[in-house]
């Protein structure tokens, strides 16, 4: 870990935690984050990221704990967490498939990929497969339009996709 930022974990593990507590590692990260800003409230986004990396999503219990730690009301924390689409307020599957559905990707054939994914996984946007492996969501432009179509799987971009190479990618993801 460096001074500059928290390195995100590669794959989030999803855990249900009712009463989350920050372990020593997280506590030291929070202290480090707080040092970057003159105001403790500014630590909210990075601390929410830290929690999502730790627990895989942001539960109501996590929001309460974060609020307590940063001296912010739970309602305020929820207001912020729900504003940003990347904070997951429901537990996702192990692999979060985020398909860009904005114009440049659509011009290059995203809808075929979407149909293929929906059929292959048997789920619609916003749903998770029964085995908990995949969650499928549609997202807006991912800022990689020159390599359309683009799908983000957890932290990685997969670009210039065809149905065939997408199949290979999904099969190679492991359990």
């Amino acid at each position: 870990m460096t001074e500059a930022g928290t390195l995100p974990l590669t794959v989030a593990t999803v855990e249900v935690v009712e009463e989350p507590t920050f372990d020593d590692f997280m506590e030291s990260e929070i202290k480090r984050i707080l040092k970057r800003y003159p105001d403790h409230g500014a630590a909210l986004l990075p601390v929410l990221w830290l929690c999502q990396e730790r627990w895989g999503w942001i539960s109501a219990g996590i929001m309460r704990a974060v609020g307590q730690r940063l001296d912010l009301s739970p309602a305020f924390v929820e207001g912020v967490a729900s504003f940003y689409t990347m904070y997951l307020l429901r537990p996702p599957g192990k692999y979060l498939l985020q398909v860009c559905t904005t114009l440049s990707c659509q011009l290059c054939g995203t809808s075929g990929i979407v149909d293929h994914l929906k059929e292959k996984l048997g789920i619609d946007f916003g749903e998770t497969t029964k085995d908990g492996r995949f969650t499928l969501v549609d997202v807006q432009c991912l800022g990689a339009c020159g390599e359309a179509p683009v799908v983000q799987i957890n932290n990685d971009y997969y670009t210039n996709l065809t149905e065939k190479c997408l199949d290979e990618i999904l099969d190679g993801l492991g359990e």
Partner: protein
Amino acid sequence: MTMEPILLRARGVKNSRTLGSYLKRGGYKALAKAIAMDPEEVIDEVKASGVRGRGGAGFPAGVKWSFVPKDLAKPTYMICNADESEPGTFKDRELILVDPHMVLEGIAIASYAIDAHTAYIYIRGEFVRETEILVKAISEARRKRYLGSDILGSGYELEIHIHRGAGAYICGEETALIESIEGKRGLPRLKPPFPAVVGVFGCPTVVNNVETLACVPHIIERGGAWFAAIGTERSTGTKLFCVSGHVERPGVYEAPMGTTFREIIEEFCGGVRGGRELKAFIPGGSSAPILPADRIDTPADFESVAEAGSMLGSGGVIVMDDTVDMVWALENLLTFYAHESCGQCTPCREGSDWALDVVRRIRRGQGRTKDIETLQRIARFASQGMTICPLGDAFCLPITSFLEHFGGEFEEAIAGAEQSVSTHLPVLPVRSDQALFEAEEVGR
């Protein structure tokens, strides 16, 4: 016109992201030079270069820096805007992937010029790998004293921190970005006061785009006059053009301001995909008005694109061939804006949803004669200063420009629908259509 790349010179260089590689191509020399200068002189050099903001608005960077009040008791802050969420734009990502130290050096010089000791890079949350690259570059630079408590032995101190966004287009707008750094919802602020006077944590703040800052080391090293000689008189330097959509070779291309879109699309990108006809292109990111194929000889600089009826914006060129249904394309763009409106201003919040509903029903064969007028009315109500931030204009400009150049397609779709409605099909309500019809009657 071909020339030596400036911002993308490290493309293809092995290990181009490392400090060692950056130093080999003369990296951080400009920072040393700047620190030996007076901050005022640095600002003057950047002013002389004429470099204008690459984030969309095109405001001269040196002038912006000079707005920061001097001798205040408060600290000042530098922010690098790496939110990059305007559809069709992917140049800042390229700069970070190819040459992160160049971006850091630009931030450091800009911070020195405005006397900031803390800088934040606001990077969109999806850019996880790009964040890792920047984190690594920052620690490398700190270790060698290009950043940190005593930069190059000068006593000047600067820490650069990364602040990750979390999925909100609106946080690219500078005041929403500032709110987001402060740990709040990304709701744009009313201006004035401008960030240069009251920005993050109530202190003077300069927000600049990644590409703008990437120009700075080159300007300091080679002089403002050198930079000003590239491009056109009022749009100086090179620009990164991000070309996507129906071209043979999409990607990021660097070219002097004033290069024509014909050169960009036909020469750099190998023309329209599959040898098809060009139908239209959006020259500057999705918020810029669409232009029909016959404007392809427009030079890509701020003035010429404005004259042609659009905006250079972020340099995101979206190319569409003759197969594209314009009603479909507008629906796609409006879906984006309806999703991304922050909801503070009624004209933007309601207007973006309403316009989407209208276009959607036109495309589903349920359009009505008055629909085009309705769209135009929405565009009048939500743009040109009726909203807190320019996102209002950002969704209205596509509407008015699509109607101006391709209105016939909308009329046809509606005429077809009217006919089928009168003969056999019942009108099916789409989503909240019923309430919308009523609203339209009231608004009349």
